[in-house]
């Protein structure tokens, strides 16, 4: 119940934030604008609308996750509301979990809104219901949950500016990690390989969540792969949240 109060409060606070609406409106404009861009193609309108729409949802969802996630804890400290909250019987770990789930709910609502708009727009061009978009959006949402977890982790011990910097860096690194492994396998020495392997498994590999090359082209995705992607996302979220809770529990808030 106490967590639920934090979740709902975080959600209400986030939906009052103007930055959320700016990003959402811009994302909807981008998705709608994809129809104009598609007109330049020769017969690939539906594909271009889907690709640009999915990329917009991913990009703007990431911006929402980062810019709302980085201030999760800091804002409460700055406004001193955190001390009131923690003076009640609310453990610090539950506070972090509640904050994370609240932001997750905000993302769910936003991805659903953007996804519904894309779904209807694609329906017009494809002349059939694009059900294949649902797993694509599901994986994207999972990626956003991982990014939110990372933002929450940094937010639990540092300032919003640094959190934004670190989270965005991890977003880029998360898409680079497989290349890094290939590069090291070709050129690195044994010690470098061990270190890179360590970082490879510590840092999130966000490419796992991008299965749209198969799904948007009408190709089947193996059930085991889909299951493993979901498992990977959930395990990463749990791990990063536990670390965030640990750091926040030891943080001196005086």
């Amino acid at each position, binding site marked *: 119940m106490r967590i639920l109060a934090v979740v709902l409060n975080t959600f209400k606070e986030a939906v009052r934030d103007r930055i959320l609406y700016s990003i959402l409106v811009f994302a909807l404009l981008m998705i709608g604008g994809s129809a104009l861009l598609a007109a330049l193609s020769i017969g690939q309108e539906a594909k271009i609308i889907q690709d640009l729409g999915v990329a917009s949802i991913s990009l703007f969802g990431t911006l929402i996750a980062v810019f709302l996630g980085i201030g999760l804890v800091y804002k409460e400290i700055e406004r001193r509301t955190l001390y009131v909250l923690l003076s009640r019987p609310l453990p610090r770990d539950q506070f972090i979990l509640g904050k994370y789930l609240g932001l997750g709910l905000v993302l769910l609502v936003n991805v659903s809104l953007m996804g519904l708009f894309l779904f209807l727009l694609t329906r017009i061009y494809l002349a059939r219901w694009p059900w294949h978009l649902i797993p694509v959006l599901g994986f994207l949402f999972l990626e956003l949950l991982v990014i939110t977890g990372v933002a929450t982790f940094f937010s639990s011990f540092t300032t919003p500016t640094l959190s934004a910097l670190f989270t965005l860096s991890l977003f880029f690194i998360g*898409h680079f990690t497989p290349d890094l492994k290939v590069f090291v396998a070709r050129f690195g020495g044994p010690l470098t390989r061990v270190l890179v392997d360590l970082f490879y498994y510590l840092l999130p590999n966000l490419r796992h969540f991008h299965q749209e090359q*198969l799904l948007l082209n009408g190709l089947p995705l193996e059930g085991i792969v889909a299951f493993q992607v979901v498992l990977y996302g959930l395990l990463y979220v749990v791990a990063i949240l536990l670390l965030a809770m640990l750091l926040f529990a030891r943080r001196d808030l005086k």
Partner: protein
Amino acid sequence: MKQRWTLVSSRGGVLLVVLLLFLGLAAVGSDLDRREGSRGQGEKEYLIPAEHLKPFLCGYEMLAADLLWLETVQYLGKHLLGDQQFPQLLPRLRRIVSLDPNFLDVYRLGAIFLAYSAGQEEEAIRLLQRAAALLPHRWEPAHDLGTLYYLRKKDYAQALYWLNRANALPGRPDYVPRFVARLYASTGERETAVEMWIGIYRQTDLDWVKDIARRELRKLGVYLPQETPR
């Protein structure tokens, strides 16, 4: 008290300066456009290879492939209406399919333009063979290879092989079994070619591909209903 003069004291003056600046920008911009446009069309341009682009795309490879395809369509249009030379078509197509290996239309349309507009049949075949290997469950690459071998290369054994493969795949057009039967009977080369081109003509919604089909049919002495023989 006298107001201090600042850069924006006179609103009209500032607007006039801004207007003049934009006029200057338009003049410089249009001159740049003219100079860039007059550069040799066959000039070799540098295309960043897909493998260099990939790491910076952060999972947005499909979007990049779409944007590069739109750029390739502009390139095609410019050269179809211009010098009819397509020196950079193949590298462009390769780059797109490296970013999105399942982008079927790029293989199909790319092969048509390579074979019938750029005269690069071998490259068109290689592109379609890559599609057939990557997308073995799709009839389109095998069908296009069959027609290309038949119509352009006159290699009937290869045409039969690929059309047989297309025939075995779900979703293939109704006329494919007829082509296969004709190829087995080794009869009516011209008739088969005419039917293949009419099939291609009917199958596409794209004016550019219809133009190619119309042109090839004219070569075979066939004029579509809306055309008259010259």
